[in-house]
């Protein structure tokens, strides 16, 4: 077993033993969703109209919440150093870490979101669009987020900086993801948006690991 797969397995085991790691963002997701009817308007028709956007914004924020710790522990305890020492490619490592992050943040969110969308009175025909847009979109959030997490891993109060760095880069995914759901809700074609998300995903999978690998090396030079 190579170090990359070993690390993925190890991180998943750690997440299994620290359920808070993946449960807290999920709770956060739920709570943000609950805030909108309270703050804006609980009228079902109104909620149905904003559901697509709200679910996506909440998903994005809760992903952000779990990103901060993605590399921090590994930088602090020397794990990162061992990756580099192993001679294994950091590119593969970056992909592996993004994958683990998606497994504990994006994947549970994608599964739970359609259930929670019920509470937001999402139109029935939008459910498959919601599921598939999140399935394609959340991995991009993890990949792009990994860049920000790697850049800010060595910074003391990196969390705030992380959101500043990453949120502008998230906007295209938000736009296409939310619009796929919205269009599905008003019975319009939404395959185009999913196509865009899929192509963004391919791009992110090939390009972001370079940036992550470069950024991780910064945390090593001491």
């Amino acid at each position, binding site marked *: 077993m190579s170090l990359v797969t070993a690390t993925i397995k190890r991180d998943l085991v750690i997440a299994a033993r620290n359920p808070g790691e993946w449960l807290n963002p999920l709770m956060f997701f739920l709570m943000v969703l609950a805030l909108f009817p309270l703050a804006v308007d609980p009228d079902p028709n109104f909620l149905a109209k904003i559901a697509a956007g709200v679910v996506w914004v909440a998903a994005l924020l809760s992903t952000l919440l779990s990103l901060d710790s993605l590399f921090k522990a590994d930088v602090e305890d020397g794990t990162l150093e061992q990756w580099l020492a192993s001679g294994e490619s950091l590119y593969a490592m970056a992909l592996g870490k993004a994958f683990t992050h998606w497994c504990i943040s994006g994947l549970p969110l994608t599964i739970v979101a359609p259930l929670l969308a019920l509470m937001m009175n999402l139109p029935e025909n939008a459910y498959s669009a919601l599921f598939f847009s999140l399935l394609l979109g959340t991995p991009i959030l993890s990949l792009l987020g990994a860049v920000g997490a790697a850049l800010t891993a060595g910074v003391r109060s990196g969390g705030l900086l992380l959101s500043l760095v990453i949120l502008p880069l998230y*906007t295209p995914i938000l736009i296409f993801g939310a619009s796929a759901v919205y269009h599905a809700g008003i019975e319009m074609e939404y395959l185009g948006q999913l196509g865009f998300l899929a192509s963004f995903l391919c791009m992110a999978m090939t390009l972001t690991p370079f940036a992550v690998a470069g950024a991780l090396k*910064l945390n090593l030079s001491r």
Partner: protein
Amino acid sequence: MWEALKRLYHRMGSPKWFYEISTRWLPWFAIPAGLCLIVGTVWGLAFAPADYQQGNSFRIIYIHVPAALLAQSAFAMMAMAGAVFLIWRMKMAAWVAASIAPIGASFCFLALITGAIWGKPTWGTWWVWDARLTSMLLLLFLYFGVMALQQAMDTEDNSAKAGAILSLVGLVNIPIIKYSVDWWNTLHQPATLTLTEKPAMATEMLIPLLIMIAGFYLLFATLVFLRTRNKILWHERKKSWVNKLIQTPAGRS
């Protein structure tokens, strides 16, 4: 040819050489910049005809468009300088990138604020989620992110590298962001009066605009020179040429 390029590259990497050459070049950028800005402003404000639809508020274009153009290309330049630093570890490039960031951000801010002010007489409100303004706003956030990273790490080298990586990621993302915002905008807003989009601009309106654009770019070069020179002085402060420079009164001006 190749040798000459290589020599030029190595000289560019030398802070002392850059400092000396920029001392000589500075007036050649600053004076034309001032001239262009004055001529362009006077022409644009007083002599260009008013727009048949927007009236005189249209004269804001002479700031808004050059600032927006510059803000975008400054980001690209910053990313290029960052790439040069990452690949060849040329410190000069890092200093140039760090100098560009606040200047680019302030032009981005200018583009935003003039857009908002222009929006009031045009749309009747200060802010509309217009595609151009929205992507400018996101660009400003990107600038802030890069600037924050450029100061965040514990060593200067690492901060510069982090800023460079983010600016490169941003450079790849800017077209995507721009495209998605445009797409989103056409989706949500029926085509209304946009700020600057015009099928064809009359020549007497266009010429001052071109002059202003030239002026802004020259001004930008001047400002980058000024800031980079300070960074050189600071980093080379222990070198003898800086010490000599400080002792001569000419060096102080």
